[in-house]
């Protein structure tokens, strides 16, 4: 029985050993890096400014009569001004309206997006590049946030903030550790394509064969704890 476990533990590990290395290395990376840090929460200031009530001149009633298809209406500050943000249910797009004047705020310009990103960053760093994405964007950001500005800052971790061109909000933050985490996840679930499918055939086959190998390894461990490896090797 022990010979069977020894033989098949070795044979299966020849097949799955490299994946075990990927599982353990990627798993260790993911558990030792704080998930809030990975999400970029330490890059940006989390506290938003208080609403300046003195500047709020437009009521919600007036807003809804102007925009009867408005849904998910909110009021908060943007670039020192109170603004209403809402989704238009007819075309599902977001709109931002100045809560002092009632005027619709057009899409953010490059300099406005850069200013929003700079104000959100905790560290004083310089902007390297600002790019607008309208129809398609990089894989690291969900397409539901389009259109958005990508603001890349200097530094070896390549911190990048994505600013919605419609609402002026930071929709997500990325950096080299997030990108590494994303790859670790793909390696961990064996979906190298996009990391979206946990229920894939590769994971099923390797997890099953790995489980068999681990159980046989456990059998060997019990055997060798009773009988040290050296004695066994010497016969």
């Amino acid at each position: 029985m022990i010979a069977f476990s020894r033989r098949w533990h070795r044979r299966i590990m020849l097949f799955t050993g490299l994946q075990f290395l990927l599982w353990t290395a990627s798993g260790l990376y993911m558990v030792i890096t704080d998930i809030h840090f990975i999400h970029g929460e330490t890059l940006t200031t989390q506290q938003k400014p208080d609403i300046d009530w003195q500047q709020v001149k437009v009521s919600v009633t007036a807003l809804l009569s102007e925009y009867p298809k408005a849904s998910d209406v909110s009021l908060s500050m943007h670039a020192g001004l109170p603004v209403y943000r809402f989704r238009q249910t007819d075309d599902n797009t977001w709109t931002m309206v100045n809560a002092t004047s009632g005027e619709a705020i057009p899409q953010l310009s490059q300099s406005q997006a850069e200013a929003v990103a700079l104000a959100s960053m905790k560290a004083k760093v310089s902007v390297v590049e600002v790019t607008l994405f309208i129809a398609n964007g990089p894989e690291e950001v969900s397409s539901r946030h389009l259109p958005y500005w990508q603001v890349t800052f200097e530094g070896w971790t390549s911190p990048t903030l994505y600013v919605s061109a419609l609402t002026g909000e930071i929709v997500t933050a990325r950096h080299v550790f997030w990108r590494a985490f994303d790859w670790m996840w793909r390696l961990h679930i064996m979906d190298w394509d996009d990391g979206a499918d946990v229920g894939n055939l590769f994971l099923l086959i390797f997890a099953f064969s790995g489980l068999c190998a681990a159980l046989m390894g456990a059998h060997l461990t019990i055997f060798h704890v009773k009988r040290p490896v050296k004695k066994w090797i010497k016969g």
Partner: protein
Amino acid sequence: MNFRRWHKWLSLVVATQLVIWLGTGLYFALADHSKAAGNTYRQPIEPGHQEPPARLADIASLPVKNAKAVRLFYLQDMPFYLVERHTSAHASQPRDTAVFNAFTGTPVQLDESMIKAQAQRSYSGPGNVLSVRLTESPVAEIPGYRNAAWAVTMDDALATTIYLRADTAQIIAHVDDPRRLRNLMFKLHFMDYANEGSFNNLFSQLFGLMALLLTLTGIWWLFRIQKARFSRRYPRKPSPAQASL
């Protein structure tokens, strides 16, 4: 101590958890993810309001001084204002809010009947409501969620409990038996034995490190075994110069 002993003693410590990791990994590969998420009897709540209300209370007149944001939301066709005094990066993290009737501008606390009705709107199963109760954070069945929540228990075969945000009655999750099984699998896989809803814990870090060392020593051992087997099968022939000596 050589790598074989390292492999043996590491495996003695890690073996059980390694089997758990692989077994739960197998579960994740096989599970029906929609059912495992508790969605068997969950249905989207259609927005009830069609036309904007004639007149709402002025946001600026609400009795709040410091607010980061005010949101208009509807609950069973009634408009409310949600005032966010403190927010976090994620909706599940602690937040300080207050809710006001958007017609009158007066503060409101959602009552059991509203919560029950909202839960039923999100539910497509055959069960009836057994109980409605308010639970404080942390809620054991939704680890990681750090605010108060309403729990509406249904008497169906899957023992569904519907959790709603205490402030807005927004559905957080349906937790039924398939979801409880998934919760257990996550807890075991993440070694989240403190039920914090996180894999960033000392257990997973220590065992992750040991599992990596176990793998490296195993690969090294395997390499040595294969090398020895190769040498036995294909012994090196002496060169003609050596043979003539």
